[in-house]
């Protein structure tokens, strides 16, 4: 039981990291990033591939964050020229392009077969203990990122992000070019997603391109909107709700007779779709919450 809770705790914390990254991008700065999973994937694969080359894990994790952050640079630059809706579709397209590229370039990524046998974090400590250790480390990191986000939000930089999110043109009329800040926050959020990806890779130890589909992006969005975007508390709470939903649906299979695993996956997708619709209709504050904390 404890092992099970530990496992879902780890997944919850991974989603927390993703949500915190998206919160910086959308919650504060109103950058509509529909391509979160792209940076998650790049982080996972970067760390995975480097670890298979023998690089020590901490270095792999750092590389994952850095590479994901760098990948966000061209997208960030592109975002300067794009309005909300175009940015959304472009980032969505980007995430699919990344997934397909990972799938195709099998000389590097082993394509659809994926990367099995990735070194698990703290594997040397034995199965039960290693999960607990991962949870502990991840919890510390998430805690650090939370602290960092709050610090950032209250800083002059954070003030500017909020101003950009509120009214970019007005800020421009006050002598400040939003460009640099938007690119930076895009990269920062992407780096967080990359680190989350590394944790994911070295927890489940087997990654394939199929795991990095847009659905993941919208899990994160759903969590953020349910919890209330714009605040760290909201991001955390939303991730928790998301985990309850995801895990709960796993058990629901036992209650719903005659539904296969695959069928359950479809129903879960349906629930996500319905949730997205309902949340946007009936919880507008989820998307556009009050002043950030």
């Amino acid at each position, binding site marked *: 039981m404890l092992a099970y809770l530990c496992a879902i705790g780890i997944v919850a914390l991974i989603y927390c990291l993703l949500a915190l990254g998206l919160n910086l991008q959308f919650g504060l700065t109103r950058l509509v990033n529909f391509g979160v999973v792209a940076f998650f994937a790049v982080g996972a694969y970067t760390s995975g591939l480097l670890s298979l080359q023998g690089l020590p894990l901490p270095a792999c994790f750092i590389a994952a964050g850095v590479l994901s952050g760098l990948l966000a640079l061209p997208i960030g630059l592109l975002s300067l020229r794009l309005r909300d809706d175009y940015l959304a579709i472009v980032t969505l397209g980007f995430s699919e392009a990344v997934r397909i590229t990972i799938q195709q370039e099998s000389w590097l990524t082993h394509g659809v077969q994926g990367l099995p046998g990735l070194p698990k974090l703290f594997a040397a400590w034995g199965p039960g203990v290693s999960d607990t250790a991962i949870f502990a480390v991840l919890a510390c990191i998430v805690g650090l990122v939370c602290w*960092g986000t709050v*610090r*950032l939000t209250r*800083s*002059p*930089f*954070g*003030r*500017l992000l*909020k*101003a950009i*999110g*509120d*009214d970019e*043109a*007005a*800020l*421009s*009329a*006050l*002598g*400040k*070019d939003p460009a640099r*800040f938007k690119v*930076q926050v895009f990269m*920062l959020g992407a780096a967080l997603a990359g680190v989350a990806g590394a944790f994911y890779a070295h927890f489940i130890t087997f990654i394939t391109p199929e795991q990095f589909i847009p659905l993941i992006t919208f899990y994160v969005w759903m969590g953020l909107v349910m919890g209330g975007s*714009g605040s760290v508390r909201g991001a955390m709470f939303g991730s928790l709700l998301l985990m309850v939903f995801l895990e709960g649906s796993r058990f629901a299979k036992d209650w719903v007779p005659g539904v296969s695993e695959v069928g359950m996956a479809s129903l879960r997708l349906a629930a996500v779709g319905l949730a997205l619709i309902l949340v946007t209709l009936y919880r507008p504050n989820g998307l556009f919450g*009050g*002043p*950030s904390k």
Partner: protein
Amino acid sequence: MSMLQVEAVTRLFGGFKAVDGVSLQLADREILGIAGTNGAGKSTLFAAIAGQQPANAGRIAFAGQDITRMPPYRRARLGLVRTFQIPREFKSLTVHENLMAAAANPQGERLLNAFFQTRGLREHEAQLAAKADGILAFLNLARVRDVPAGGLSGGQKKLVELGRVLMLDPRCILLDEPFAGVNPVLIDEICERVRALQGRGIAFIVIEHHLQALKALSHRMIVMDRGRILAEGDPHTVLDDPRVQEAYMGGVV
């Protein structure tokens, strides 16, 4: 040398000339009023001068520099700032934070400095905060210092916009309908503030429909109609110009 020089500026939307060959000059410390019917192109002219909608033809010079093609943020840095017809306050920031966001603070606003605040940065931030408080006091907004700007009245929002541009120590402020939707008592207050600021050396161009207030405030006035300048001159006489009367279709001027 004039502070602002606008030469034959034209701004097109598709084939439609919102601003059609407008020329004007603004002298140092002058308050220039712009009146005109709806759709005359007044706000579009501001957008051309401030850069949100750059001119398609013509030339604009500010303090001797050609700014015709400059992006808005660079024009603001030169000291040419504007407010908006419908206030564009930063809703998720408090009034004080609105002003702080406007203040030039390149070092403090760096990402890394969010985590590592040296003493110098802290002092600088405190200085800016004090300046903001001073401006809020000047604008009689001190009471709402920590209120989220989205919750203010229309008139207060306009004052916040004015406060924001004042943080930049501007040389020229374009005020777009500062009195619209503002109660009459506040209008007098705003006029007082504008005169005080003009006394301190800031030039103004003011778009307004409140012709009485505009007449009293301006040193000189321009009337626009359908993208062009109809008449120009002394505020108290320019509105009697028969062309102006005709444009306003017999309305009380």
